[in-house]
């Protein structure tokens, strides 16, 4: 599905978090959002899912105004994988994946719902732990279960908020391979991510955000030292081997260290006002 974002603005308690965001993502495209902590990545993802209601601007999904859609209808089309999730009470892997059928379930799950759950679990290789409590799983397995839940929604848009940040190497690649597969099957993917190398490797498009604004947008080729340094305040080396782009951080910018001292008070105050858990 095609996503068109126009003039999107959002603020937490009067502090602007997103400023005039404009963006188009095509069907089956894999878009990565990169940028420092607090740049508005999570807020942006939550707006696309209407977990947060933007103050200004419009988000169109296949020409439909998101604002006019019922929450349950959005849930039938948009799957969301949050940054961190912890259930209040224990649930099994099967029940968690089945939860993805929630937008389609009225009273009890149908056999079609169960079949979809089984299919997703087979695909993600979760069958052998289907009756386990998800709190007993490793971080990597739990993340796969959460992805399974989103896939059980059979979404046409997949939103992932730093899906790899707490995973080991193997699970990072596994999770992103699954996600890439979805994009190759015409699911539109938007993912926020900190690892620039992974972003370079998996994405069709990348946007760089800073202070609630899009700094640069384009293909992985926008990952140049000239673009990265002002956004992250870190100087980097960029290497290319064949198709793949490698970003190696060198050191903090001198200028940043000085600026940080001067602006320390203001920045801390701004940060304190932000709602926790957003980035």
């Amino acid at each position, binding site marked *: 599905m095609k996503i068109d974002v126009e003039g999107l603005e959002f603020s937490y308690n009067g502090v602007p978090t997103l400023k005039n965001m404009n963006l188009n993502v095509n069907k089956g495209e894999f878009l990565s959002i990169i940028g420092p902590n607090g740049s508005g990545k999570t807020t942006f993802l939550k707006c696309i899912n209407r977990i947060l209601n933007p103050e200004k601007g419009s988000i169109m999904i296949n020409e439909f105004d998101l604002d006019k859609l019922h929450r349950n209808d959005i849930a039938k089309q*948009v799957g969301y994988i*949050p940054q961190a999730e*912890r259930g209040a009470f224990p649930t099994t892997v*099967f029940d968690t994946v089945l939860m993805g059928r929630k937008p389609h379930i009225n009273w009890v799950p149908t056999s079609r719902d169960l079949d979809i759950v*089984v299919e997703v679990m087979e695909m993600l290789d979760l069958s052998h732990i289907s009756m386990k409590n998800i709190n007993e799983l490793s971080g990597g397995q739990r993340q796969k279960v959460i992805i399974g839940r989103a896939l059980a929604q059979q979404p046409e848009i997949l939103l992932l908020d730093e899906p790899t940040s707490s995973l080991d190497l193997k699970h990072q690649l596994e999770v992103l391979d699954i996600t890439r597969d979805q994009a190759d099957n015409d699911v539109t993917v938007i993912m926020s991510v900190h690892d620039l190398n992974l972003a370079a490797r998996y994405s069709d498009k990348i946007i760089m955000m800073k202070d609630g604004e899009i700094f640069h947008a384009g293909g992985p080729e926008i990952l140049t030292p000239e673009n990265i340094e002002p956004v992250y305040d870190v100087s980097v080396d960029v290497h290319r081997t064949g198709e793949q782009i490698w970003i190696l951080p060198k050191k903090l910018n001198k200028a940043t260290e000085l600026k940080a001292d001067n602006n320390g008070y203001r920045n801390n105050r701004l940060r304190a006002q932000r709602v926790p858990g957003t980035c």
Partner: protein
Amino acid sequence: MGQSSILDLYKKDIGKKLVFGVSILIFLIILMSFAVLVGPVNIPLPEILSVLTGQTKSGMAYHIIWNIRMPQILTAVIAGAGLAISGAVMQSVLRNPLGSPFTLGISHAAAFGAAFAIVILGTGTTHSSGDVVNINNPYITTISAFMFSMISTGVILALAKYKQASPETMILTGVAIGSVFTAGISAIQYFAEDTAIAAIIFWQFGDVGKTSWTEIGLITAVVVPLSLWFAYNSWNFNALNSGDDTAKSLGVDVDKLRIKGMVISSTVSALIVSFVGIIGFVGLVVPHIVRKLIGGNEMLLLPFSFFTGSLLLLISDTVARNIISPEVLPVGILTSFLGAPLFIYLVIKGREYW
């Protein structure tokens, strides 16, 4: 593992849990029949049967069975069910294992409301004489108890709605409100006359033996349809377990569900407490027991909590009626005695989720 085998495993699992639910139900029915048979007054079985089949329509046995034992059993069943399911819903909408009518201050607010009616509105003193304590206008007492519990709920909900209070804040507020009302009860008692104090204390003992048939009808008419609403929303509650953001992403209107769930579960428990007094721990412990036995799926948790609540309160009441025969112990005292250690046991044993 083959495609069918996960599904088989899942279906077998659900089947096992359903067997548990049906056993609870069967056990409940057996216990209800047993509870008709026993009591401080010994009635021979043939006499009981002739009363139940309608052959005997008068006399002491008839009176005891139809006007004392039956209403008491049915009150225990419906009150236990209502308290347990509303506790389960509170835990679920607040995403907190401490949710219950007790911890949210509803019980204490009701007790204060009753004390207020007895002393200030004078519903409990006029006909008291000797050691017989009479509440001469039970309806005003009950209505006042209900009103005050709804006030306590209202404060918590207003905080949630207008100050965006988190579920944790809501529980802490409930605890605080509970202690304010406890202080209020002490204050009223300090200034009240002896007979009024006796009436207040008598009211506070949770006792399923003081309800009439009409009152049972009223409680049932409220508890059953609202419990069906809970069951209908079980998938919404399931989604809420994964967190507010996830629930929203799955199509749940979280804020509305939380407010509605709180209003309805508070109404159910306030109504029950207003009629039967404080019965602690049923609302808190039963959902935990059920969760421990069959897991957290609300689709099963809610109905099974409903019946397990009935069962637990009926067992407690049958024991309380007979343990120091011919004295009859109010069941609220027993549930608190049993519930607190049981709760501590669950906290220590069932730590996997808090």
